[in-house]
Structure formats: C-alpha cells, structure tokens
C-alpha cells in the first residue's frame, strides 16, 4: 500500500474510484469519481497535494509527481499510460500520455493533448526562470524522436474517446477480480 516515509499520506478518494493494492500513493492525494489506479502505479505528492479529476486512468509504472509546493491539478478523462512520468504543475482534460512519455515541471498541459510514446515535453524556451511555467496550447501532439510538436485538427477524436471509454468500462469490470 502506501509507505509515507516522512510524509503523512492522506488519500481522499471518491467511492467509485478503483485503487489497486500494489500501487504507491504518498502524500495528500484526492481522486475524483471513476478514477482507476493500476497496480505498480505511483502517485507521489511529495511537495504539495495532487488533485485528480474524474475518470482518469493511471496505468502500471506510471509516475505522477508533485515536487513543487502548490497544488497539482489534473483534469478529467486523462489517460496516463505505462511508464509515463508527469511532473507538470497542471494538466487539463482528455489528454493522453503515451507509454514512456515525460512531461517536465516547467510545462503546463492544457486539454486534448497527446504526448507520443517516448517523447519528452520540455519548455520551448530554455531560459525560462524556474518559477514560470509554459502552457502548451490545446490539441497539441508531441511526436517523433525529437519530440516535435504540432496542432491536431481533432479529426476522429470522438472515435478515440469512445474507444477509451470502452477500455475504461472494461477495466472497471475486470480489475476488482
């Protein structure tokens, strides 16, 4: 379960949230309705609290870390796939973090974005002072070996969300077993 080394763990989860026993949750975490946390996922609210919206899925070995001292707000219907690592101070809705993607703490993520597999999301301006944060526009897709960005025209988005909703409902049935 959760091992708080020097941090007191306080989890506030909605009754419909599903948290696997093997996951690592530390610090002050709030989970919205319908969230699913897979085994071996890690949500570490080390610096400040983390608030996760409704219907988010955090898969195995995904890491959501908050090292800053402000609240890290994550919106609804986000999909954190296997091996991803998110440290952004805020995340919007309907995003997909594909396997092994990484989002740095200098970038805030808006809605409907996709971080491709293995990509790293860093601030475009490397000289940004450590307090400030760059927000990427909605519908951004980060792709490729060089982690390039482009804006998506959202074609077939509804199909994708429908697919995801099917996956989530399947998980909800199967995970408790």
């Amino acid at each position, binding site marked *: 379960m959760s091992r708080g080394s020097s941090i007191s763990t306080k989890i506030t989860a909605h009754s419909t949230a599903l948290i696997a026993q093997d996951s690592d949750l530390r610090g002050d975490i709030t989970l919205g309705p319908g969230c699913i946390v897979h085994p071996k996922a890690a949500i570490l609210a080390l610096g400040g609290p983390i608030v996760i919206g409704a219907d988010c899925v955090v898969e195995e070995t995904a890491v959501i870390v908050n090292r800053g001292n402000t609240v890290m707000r994550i919106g609804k219907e986000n999909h954190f796939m296997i091996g991803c690592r998110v440290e952004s101070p805020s995340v919007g809705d309907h995003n997909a973090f594909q396997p092994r993607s990484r989002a740095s703490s200098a970038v805030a993520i808006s809605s409907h974005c*996709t971080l*491709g597999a293995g990509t790293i999301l860093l601030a475009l301006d490397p000289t940004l002072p450590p307090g400030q944060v760059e927000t990427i526009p909605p519908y951004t*897709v980060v*792709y*490729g070996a060089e982690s*390039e960005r*482009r804006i*998506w*025209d959202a*074609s*077939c*988005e*509804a*199909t994708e969300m*429908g697919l995801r909703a099917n996956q989530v409902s399947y998980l909800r049935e199967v995970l408790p077993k």
Partner: protein
Amino acid sequence: MADTTVLYHCPHLDPPHGPLPPELLSSSASLHALPELYFCEECDAVRCNLCVGVEVASYFCPSCLFDVPSANVRADKNRCARSCFSCPQCSSSLQVQAADPPTGEVSSSSGTGPFLLICPGCKWSSREVGWEFEKSSGLAQQLARVHSAAEVVQSEFDSLKDHLETYLTASAPTPAPTSRTRHPTRHISHLTQMAAKALHREIPGMAAASARTRGGRNAVKSAEDRVGWDEMKEYEAKGRCAGLEVDKAVELEELREGEWAGAVAGIEQTWAKSWDGDRRTKALLPQRIPLQTKLTKRCPAPTCRHLLIQPDSKSTRMKIKMVAANYLPAVEIGRRRRRIVPGDASEVPAEDVERRRRERRKTRGAKEEDEVMTDPLRPGEVYYFQLALTNPLYDPIQIRLTHAHAKSSAHTIQNDNAVIHIVTPHFTINALKDAWAYDEEEDEEEADFEGTEASEEATGSIATGSGTGSGTVGRKGARMSLLAGGSVRDNGKERRDGVERKGNVSKVGVEVEVSPQARGLIEFDIEVRYTYRSDEGEEKADEDVGVKDASGAGAGAQGGAEGYKTFTFWVRVNAGKVEPVLVK
C-alpha cells in the same frame, strides 16, 4: 564504441585464412557479426553478405504484408497499390478510420461514413490535404481517379495526339486522279510527314501508318501537296502555361512571408520527392509505401551455387535457412573483472613485469572486482574477461584457441596496447540438447561429472557430459552426491581446468593486461578450431598442445577410424576502449 564485440572473419572465396592484424585498418572490412553470416555445407565455408549471390524472390509491402506478384510490380511503380500510405509529417504508416459523424456522440463505430487517413504517431489527418474517401479499401484507385497530378500531363498529350491524328487521317485518303499508287501520301504536307514518323512511333499498333510514312519521304512537291499545308487548324492547349506560373508565384509568396520553421517542409519529408515540387508543408501529400524485396541468397563458389537462404512467399519463415549460427559456436565476451593490486603499479622494469605475470598466473585467489562492461579500460591495469562459447551442434565439440597472427607463443598475444593471455586454450563444450532431454539427464550428469573430474586433469580426455554411458549410477546415489557435493562442485569446476560449463555453453578466462601507454581500442584476433565427430564413441585424447600449423583445411578428416571433422574460423574480439585517467 565502448561496447565489446566479437566479429567473425569471412575469407570470401579464398581458401580459409585469418584476417589481417587489427592494426591494419583495412582488415575490418571482412568482419561480421555472427547473426549476419551464412554457412555453405557443401563447401564447408563461411559466407557473408558481401560474397553471397543475391536474387529477388518476391516483393511485398512492409505495411500490409501483402505479396505483390512480380508482374504487377512494374505497373504499380514499385509501390503498394492497396491503401498503404506514409504520413508526410513523420513517415509512419497511415491508418484508415471513419470520420466522426458531425452530430453528437458516437455510441458505436460508424462504418459507413467518409473515411480519412490518420497517422497513429503524430495524429496527422488527411483532411488537412483534402483527401476523403467513400470506401475504406482500394484507396489508391480512388485517389488515381480524382486527385492525381500526373493526369494533367497525360491528358494534354492525349488531346494533342488526337488533334494531329484527325488531321492526318483526314487528308490521307484523297488520292489525286493522276496519282501513282506508289505515293499515296503526297497530299500530306511536308511538316506532317516529318512529324508523323515521330508521332506514330508512340503508337505500337499502327503498322500501317509507318508504312505510309516510309513511302512518303520522296513525295513530289507538286501543287497538290500545297493544298494540304494550310488545313491544319491551330491547336488549343487544355491547360495554360501561365496557370502553372501563377501557382508557383503563390507558393513563393507564401514561402517568403511564412516562417521557415512551420511553412517549409523539412529535408526529411521532401528528399524522396521531385525537385520541382511544392515545398510548403501544407502541400505535402502522403506517398504510397514503396515495396520491399525478399531475397534469395546463394553460395558464390562457381561450382557450388547452393541455396543458403530461400524465403517463403506466403509467410515470414524461410524454406531454406543455412545460417552460420547453426554451425559455428557463438563466441561472446563478458564479465569483466579488474585485478586489484595493492600499492603503486607504475614503472616496473621489464624483467619484473614478466616475472610478475608468471606469478600472477600461477596464484589464484587474488582480489578482483567486477566491472561494468561499458566503462572504459584504464592503462596499466589487468583485466579478466570470460569468453563464452555456445555449441550449436548436437555433438560435443573440442575447442582450441590460438593467437591468429604469431607463430610462436600461440596463447599470448602482444601488441602495443595490451598483452592478452588465453588462460585455457583447449577445452570442450557439451552438446546442445533439447529442453526435455535436460530433465532426464540432470541427475545423471552430475554424477557423471564427479566421476570424470579426476581423470580429466590427468589425460585431458573429454567428459562428453551426454551421460549416455553413465546409466549405472543409481538415482539415489546421484541425489546424494548432489546434496553432499553441491558447493564443492561449484568451486571444483573452476579450480580444475578453468572452464565453467552449463548446458552447451563453456566459459573460459582471458587475461588482458593493458600496457601503460595504451590508447584506443583493445582488439585481438583469435583462431578458433573446433573438432567434432559425426559418429558416437569415445574420442581419444588427441590434444595437440604445440601444433603450429595454421590449419587451412576446411573439412579435413583427421584420424581415419573415428570420423573427425575439424573446422577453423577466426574471430576478432574488441575488449573495449582504453581511456587514461585524467590527471588533475
């Protein structure tokens, strides 16, 4: 570059010989990794990709894995004709998906809506270039009808030809009343005569036309001929050259004003396209995916020409597959340990170095430290590696390792960079066994090993380990020896002959002493000779410790009655890169 590698030498069509010494840079051309090599059984020789003869067996699309019949390949311009396109942004394969219906949520996937091409990598959608399809298959054909740019040129040419054709056929069948039948073409103007030959050359089926032309070259220029001159009407082109210019001007304007980063297509995306094309990012169209080939490879020896690789057109497997890994032992280097020498190891006089070396090799139990293989080597240190050889044959083999280039002192290699000593130059490797055979043999094998240990060091006879002759040891006895001699046995393996054996893998030690002036890579060549039997039976103790002849014979049968077979190959081992410790 800091990775250790073991490469095999292919002597191509020459009689087998070793590679040139690693100090000569040209020697690296004939070295290959084991997975890339083939083996010809007829010639008993290693073959590599450089010497093998290659033929195309079939063509296939890498995206849909469809085998394209060779007849269609030329017609399709070597590209997939079946809806496989590559994304213009990230060049991954595009998927066909139904577009979202414009109203509200989609509860079930709609299979009938207009179809788009979506890139799973960068989410590029074909809606950005205006491609939408009614059906989800046969996209290439749907495209060809509607969007093709090559059509413009072709249709222009067709209408031009039609125009001239009507003129030609109109004037030909009007014979003058006094004409001689030998010159039916004299009413066609001079210009048309010359043009007709060129025009008609394009049309394969018009034999009659060319016959006419031949006769018309000597036409008499009479007044009747001139009648035909003015009849040709002016031709109106379908497209306008000016139109093309306008397109180009728009493009240049946009390029001039737009930001370079976004508007201009990058090199990765345009290098495969034509020079004149539109350079803007938004004009990049998905390209059909080029086909790839499945190759058949043959032995290059002129008398042999045996098939080494023959792919199966229906699946990914091969009908014939003669790879070197099935014939040659796989050599790998690993498990680096560094010897810890107390005190300062600098500036030792030459005689002392040799003496220390001999002492070092005799004594055991010196302190050693495990190291990561990717760390650079340090000059002046002594490292121990393990060479692991894996036996691919179903018979046990006997290995002899020697230095590839020197004549004397066959087990120690010395070059400017390092002194390399092969600790165990002669040893055996057990046979490869299938997984189920291991379960049966396990108990018998342990008991067998205990028994032969004593005799092994004395005469060097081989413990075959196959256990076929040791069935007399009862199961209970075997288990007892297991329990009692467990730990002793493990150390015993090492201490006895320096060879660790597990299954069909044997590991031997190699000592690498890096000289204080070393720079660059530590590379050395080893000649590996292995001997195996095709018949069963005990092998005589036949170790030639001091054999100096570099064996050039490929398949020599040594020892008449036993049916030995020997094969020799050469290996270059790269032990890592030397980097001096930076002095602060």
